């Protein structure tokens, strides 16, 4: 299982004379993440040319770290998008998770691992709530998660002011369990003479798991079906509602992982952070070839989208340009990638 795919894998068991054999290239081009592969290579080549330092191993580690902080969320968001839904609350959900862990253990004076556990439950609960509201009200996920986005934004600010009396969470760096939690969620691993952030590993592991889930399990089949045509899916007995709720819970899990990293990497969190990041995750998924309307895409695509994000973000710094231009490049990438995806998909579908 080397590649992620929409369900369009493997050579056919028996050949047929009406099947004009498509070349390996044509079949590769038909993959949903193809546009993102081309984009990633182009962006890499571009920055490698304008800033030679970009190709050094230490720069690669920095770029991958930046990519992983988007990529971890992009995994959950990509699956959700393939399942036909959006989540606008993801940006603040990450901060919400970190704030919960920090303030719970600080306020009650517990070991921070207790806070970490509580944050996990709360994050999964928030995902469940999003999914549950969606299937019960049958409102579009845009509306449901816009509402939770606003509420969580308010809770983050309000509760932090109540508990800590300010806009940042109390520092938990000296509390019991902080060091051990830090060595898990914010570990640095020496390899090839460079220090790599553990989030890169977490990110890659999530991509592998998500890809396996999508392509090789029943749940993966249900995700594609729920996003592709939910009525057809439920008519043949697919538990569409449970699948969608599960996808939101998966996003909650990703938010918890990233939230814990942010908390233990810096020891404290700003309650107003996270707003706007939800779009970065969605952009990564879209650049990676996930169809906005659902039913098509891959986890690897979302990862490539995050990688492009990381490269542009850090590449601008290495090229010593003003980072003000970052958003412009991101927008341009999004536009180009989606156009490429569209063209690739159209051509692939023609026989």
């Amino acid at each position, binding site marked *: 299982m080397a590649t992620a795919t*929409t369900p*369009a*894998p493997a050579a056919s*068991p028996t050949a047929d004379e009406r099947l004009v054999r498509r070349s390996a290239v044509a079949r590769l081009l038909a993959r949903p993440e193809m546009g993102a592969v081309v984009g990633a290579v182009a962006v890499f080549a571009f920055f490698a040319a304008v800033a030679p330092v970009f190709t050094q191993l230490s720069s690669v580690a920095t770029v991958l770290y930046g990519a992983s902080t988007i990529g971890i969320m992009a995994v959950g968001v990509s699956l959700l998008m393939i399942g036909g839904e959006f989540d606008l609350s993801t940006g603040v959900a990450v901060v919400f998770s970190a704030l919960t862990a920090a303030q719970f253990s600080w306020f009650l004076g517990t070991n921070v691992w207790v806070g970490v556990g509580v944050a996990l439950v709360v994050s999964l609960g928030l995902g469940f709530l999003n999914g549950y509201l969606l299937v019960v009200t049958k409102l579009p996920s845009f509306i449901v998660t816009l509402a939770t986005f606003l509420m969580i934004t308010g809770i983050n600010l309000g509760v932090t002011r109540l508990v800590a009396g300010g806009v940042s969470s109390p520092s938990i760096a000296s509390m019991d369990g902080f060091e051990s939690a830090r060595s898990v969620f914010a570990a640095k691993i020496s390899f090839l003479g460079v220090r790599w952030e553990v989030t890169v590993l977490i990110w890659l592991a999530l991509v592998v798991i998500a890809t396996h889930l999508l392509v090789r399990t*029943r749940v993966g089949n249900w995700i594609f079906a729920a996003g592709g045509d939910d009525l057809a899916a*439920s008519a043949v007995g697919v538990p569409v509602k449970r699948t969608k709720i599960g996808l939101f819970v998966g996003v909650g899990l990703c938010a918890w992982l990233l939230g814990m990293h942010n908390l233990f990497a810096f020891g404290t969190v700003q309650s107003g952070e996270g707003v706007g990041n939800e779009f970065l995750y969605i952009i990564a998924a879209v650049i990676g070839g996930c169809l906005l309307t659902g039913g098509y895409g891959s986890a690897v695509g979302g990862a490539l989208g995050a990688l492009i994000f990381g490269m542009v973000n850090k590449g601008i710094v290495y090229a010593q340009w003003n980072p003000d231009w970052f958003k412009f490049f991101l927008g341009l990438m999004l536009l180009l990638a989606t156009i490429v995806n569209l063209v690739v998909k159209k051509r692939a579908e023609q026989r």
Partner: protein
Amino acid sequence: MTTTTGTSLVTMRGVGKRYGNILALQDVDLDVQAGRVTCVLGDNGAGKSTLIKIIAGRHQHSEGVLEIHGEERTLGSPREALDLGIAAVYQDLAVVPLMPVWRNFFLGSELTKGRGPARILDVKKMQRIAKQELLDMGIDLRDVNQPIHQLSGGERQCVAIARAVYFGARVLILDEPTAALGVKQSGVVLRYVLRARDRGLGVVFITHNPHHAYPVGDRFLLLKRGRPLGYHEKKDVTLDELTSQMAGGAELEELAHELEQTDADSALIADVRAAEV
């Protein structure tokens, strides 16, 4: 099949359905038997779809009695109906367009191997079975890996029917499977209906075309404005009678128009009859 021909699978007595203050269906009696094709005929809005949605678990009846395998029931969901061996194939929502044929074939009833967290899809086996099942039913697909939206309407319809048959449906409901199809494609689907019948399934075949219904049907239920207009055994009714009952006395103009098209349709009937023997 264990059921013998003629066993009642689904029985309706005085069934009615209201949508708010709209009476979509009233006083319908129906008996779906194993190894027989029951045709439901009627004009647009006559209540045909409503009738079968009740049997398929997508809507619940508001009056009367629905018996399945001899037991009185109200079906809460399509899953519940499927578990009782009732499978419905809809013109519009039979398949997920972007998914490959084999994934559609096994959707909701996927085959797996391994256990616990190591449980994965048995892709090879599903591809092989899908290909073989379709071949057995006379559909020779190029490639079961192609997205199903690339198939023709008739082929798509047949995949959905083959799927229902493979998963052991005892009652097969087809909502206007031939409505959007050309003569030849209709012939393929109608032939398929007969194969399902010969396997001992009870088939409910919805159509507004008596020329499609008559050659394959054993019984005919005519609906008009939500009410039964007639319920005939094949031996008691001719195609002409069926057609004129459907059209109604006043709508002779329409009838004449319909009859003009019998050129193509009689060829179709001959086609289907040939498959019958």
